[in-house]
């Protein structure tokens, strides 16, 4: 029930955004993430953006996982 999926903000009007999830357009309420901007990915939960996805942290995590994979190859 705490399901939340990354959604890309396409446009914002007042406290509501049009977001895209895998090519599908939805409305997202921005009351909980008023700082969200067009181009941000937000975690969408029951129609509300609850968090802004941090792309730098996402990249860092993947880099770390790739390093783990490289080390596993070597051993």
């Amino acid at each position, binding site marked *: *029930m*705490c399901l939340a999926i990354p959604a*890309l903000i396409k446009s914002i009007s007042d406290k509501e955004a049009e977001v895209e999830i*895998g090519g599908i357009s939805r409305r997202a309420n921005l009351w909980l993430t008023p700082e969200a901007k067009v181009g941000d990915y937000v975690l969408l939960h029951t129609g*509300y953006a*609850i*968090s802004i996805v941090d792309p730098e942290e*996402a990249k860092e995590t*993947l880099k770390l996982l790739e390093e783990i994979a490289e*080390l596993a190859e070597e051993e």
Partner: protein
Amino acid sequence: MKFIDEYRRSDLGKALARKIHRSSTKKARFMEFCGGHTVAILKHGIRQLLPPTIEMVSGPGCPVCVTDNVDLDKAVALAQLPGVILATFGDMLKVPGSRSSLQEAKAGGADVRIVYSATDAMEIARKNPTQSVVFLGIGFETTAPTIAASVRQAEQESIRNYYVLSLHKLCPPVIRVLLDSGEVKLDGLICPGHVSAIIGSRPWEFIARDYHIPCVVSGFEPLDILQSVDMLVAQIENGDARVEIAYRRGVHSEGNQTALALMNQVFEVCPAWWRGIGVVPNSGLKLRPEFERFDAELAFDFDSGPAIEHKGCLCGEILRGVKTPKDCKLFATVCTPERPVGPCMVSSEGSCAAYYLYGASYG
């Protein structure tokens, strides 16, 4: 899809699994608190990837499942009042209450409507000004701020026929109760990612400090979970106990301050009934006095009658991590997703439903 597909790469998953196999020498039992994690673990076959040293048990992190009949019966009673439209997330519909589910109430003439969001419930209120719309407020810290936002919005727009039955629950207090009970011994906790997106990682620190149990806040993709298990194993092998965040793209240690402020403005903590666990102090949320005109429990006169539990159903033990669905005689025989006896078979993220769908071969 971006931020999903990358975290499902099988090459990285296999590498993580190999690393976990190599590093895990001590036997350890980890609880995934959240039902969303239970589903992901079973769906992606993560248990088969882990070494025999690691046991995974499911926790009580399914809001539908932990809603006690005491509270569900209130929702059914409210739905049966004339002039009331009860709006609810779809998961609640089939949960058998003491005498009726919401679905049965609907079949009997009650106006019960499934909504995806609190904003949908408000829209029903706008369109039906002569009726009272009660939104069934189910959910943890992830969902409570969205309901708080809806109450504030209804106040701003002067929507006078919108009410909330607040059955929200808070996660950290119930974990303390589980740990204090001594019923289930844990060596590590996978903390719920989206609850933590709101509350941050600090509210979990008491688990590491007071119980010396390592905690990792995890995302919901297979690589997220494997990474979290790897981090827990590293702590166990080193004898550490601290709170770490694996799900860094979605969770900050301080959480979402806007959401927390809104939640605290609209709600105050209260005791809450947890199915199978009982009353847990400071683990619920009720509307503050300044918002009590939105409180369905105060606005309507109703009698929900005495709560009755279904005999033989092990949902309570399963929610406490003491039993698994396979221990229940009703599982997959009398109790199926089509004809559920207990809520853990109803909710898509209930342990029983997840075992039924993905985990037939697990003991």
